[in-house]
């Protein structure tokens, strides 16, 4: 596999840190009691979503889950709009009517964020079907967790996507937990990727903590989809370093395993790769400082923003009745 070029590497680094710093900021605000909303932490999974988004073109579609902060910010939702939505403000992507679990921003290609495990997978097929029907050349990527690979819709959608050779990439972020249940307690097949074979589909499993593994795999899947060669199931192995949602008990996660997985933390690994590729500490730190400043401004904007009008509960229900 060819080495990732420097510009792309820098792009992935920037997106990864944007995801990470957003996550850190969210947890800080929650701990300080400045906001009180549901938040599904992405610590440990930053690289997978950032590398996947870097493999897409701006016009490509993305479907993600309630743990979708990584895809959303890495794909490029303007931060003020993103924070506005998470804080339930009128300035949010969805006027405060979606919230953290239902972020939609078609301008960025984030078409659906679903709060129902696995439900985005069949919807991604439809976006891809539309692209196939009208020949717009777009690829749809749907991100989901290992738990989602056990709902019926996953299997129906895999079969249908392969049948029609839809331009879709199924990205399973195997973070080792389906809500509070460990992988081994919800699935007996050794990998999710091998399930692809059951549908006649190409399936690959990669180290989601290694930029040199995850980016090329997703890129190849995106290229295949765009070339009309059909879907790919990419299973990126990663680790959800915290509980299912912020503040939830995670005593079911063995401490020794957490310690072991910390050694696989994608962030120091990525930094090491960057330094090996002759990026300097100063350059990398500057990127993070700039991101932090952007996030701080966006958070302040969202905190200061107005709440949606109460009338909004009657709007956007049905167009014809409004």
């Amino acid at each position, binding site marked *: 596999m060819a080495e990732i070029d420097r510009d792309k590497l820098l792009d992935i680094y920037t997106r990864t840190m944007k995801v990470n710093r957003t996550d850190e900021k969210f947890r800080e605000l929650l701990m300080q009691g400045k906001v009180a909303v549901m938040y599904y932490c992405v610590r440990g999974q930053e690289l997978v979503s950032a590398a996947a988004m870097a493999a897409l073109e701006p016009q490509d579609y993305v479907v993600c889950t309630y743990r979708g902060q990584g895809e959303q910010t890495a794909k490029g939702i303007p931060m003020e709009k993103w924070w506005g939505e998470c804080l339930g403000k009128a300035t949010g992507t969805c006027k405060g009517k979606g919230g953290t679990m239902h972020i939609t921003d078609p301008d960025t290609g984030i078409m659906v964020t679903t709060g129902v495990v696995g439900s985005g997978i069949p919807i991604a097929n439809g976006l891809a079907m539309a692209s196939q029907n009208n020949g717009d050349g777009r690829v749809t990527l749907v991100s989901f967790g290992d738990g989602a690979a056990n709902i019926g819709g996953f299997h129906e959608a895999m079969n*249908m996507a392969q049948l029609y050779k839809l331009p879709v990439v199924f990205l399973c972020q195997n973070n080792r937990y389906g809500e509070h249940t460990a992988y081994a307690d919800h699935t007996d097949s050794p990998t999710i990727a091998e399930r692809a074979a059951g549908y006649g589909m190409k399936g690959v499993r990669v180290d989601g903590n290694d930029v040199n593994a995850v980016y090329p795999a997703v890129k190849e899947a995106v290229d295949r989809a765009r070339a009309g060669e059909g879907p790919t199931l990419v299973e990126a192995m990663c680790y959800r370093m915290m509980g299912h949602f912020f503040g939830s008990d995670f005593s079911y996660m063995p401490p020794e395993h957490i310690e072991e997985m910390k050694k696989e933390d994608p962030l120091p690994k990525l930094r090491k790769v960057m330094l090996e590729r002759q990026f300097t500490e100063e350059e990398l730190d500057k990127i993070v400082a700039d991101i932090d400043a952007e996030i701080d401004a966006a958070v302040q904007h969202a905190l200061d923003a107005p709440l949606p009008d109460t009338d909004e509960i009657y709007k956007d229900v049905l167009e014809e009745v409004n």
Partner: protein
Amino acid sequence: MAEITMTQALNLAIDEAMAEDDGVFCLGEDVSAKQGGGVFKVTAGLTEKYGEHRVRATPISETAIVGAAVGAALAGQRPIAEIMLMNFVGVCMDQIVNHAAKLRFMSGGQTPCPIVIRTTTGVGVGFGGQHSDMLEAWFAHVAGIHVVTPSNAADARGLMRSAIDANDPVIFIENILCYGLKAEDPGKGYRVPLGKAAVAKEGSDISLITYGRTVLDALEVAGELEKEGISVEVIDLRTIAPYDEETVLASVNKTGRALTLHEAVRPFGTGAEIAANIQEKCWDKLKGPVRRIGGTFSAVPFASHLEQAWIPTKEEIVGQIKASVGKD
């Protein structure tokens, strides 16, 4: 003008819409030419005209069918998904209720979901418990969906065009026993607006509010009672949700009496909602309690005499009307 059946009416409406807009396409089990154009032939002949991408025969995968329709709609297309029988909607309720119905609202209006979900059902064809239910109340209870059912071929043509035009999800219920009904073809481009009821027969003594196949029973009963001096106004809702409250209330305010009638089981049915609304808004005009008739509260039985006994009978309709007007 020639007469057409309801099957032909639906086919013509879909064909027209597909010809006018490349974004309109059909998907569902057995819908394409290879399988004969749908089990009830509604999509017959469309594959030949528009190709297999626009008439997609799918695997038996209701969740994947509706999910794909939702996704395609978000991308700006207008899918018409067929769920072969209404009982199977249980398999894909998540996609309908959590996604199709809510994506416009939850996105703050950014992603409307213009899909039509065609489905068939009906009591009286011997299909038994898992192929016969009328489940419109399930959908009427969810904000963000239109629920439509025609009682005649002309309306079928017009309602289907409007359903495809609509920028929101529409559940389009086709009663199997109505497929063969004939009407004069209203012609190309004919539309019946969603949310607008028809006064199928004017009357002055009681308003009989119904939809779908039971409209036929209602009209027959109304005709018979006319001879006995009881004047029944028959309202065909056509759109069950959101329904045409204005027409219903105006009728009840005129007649002072109301009876709701549907094939779906009576408890928690749409008739209960309509009856409650009438009690609240027409109380000073009502001459008696609003009455309800619905199917028996059991699974639809197989044996034909049991199945016939399950359906609201014309005798029951007559009895309720006479009791209401004080002539029983």
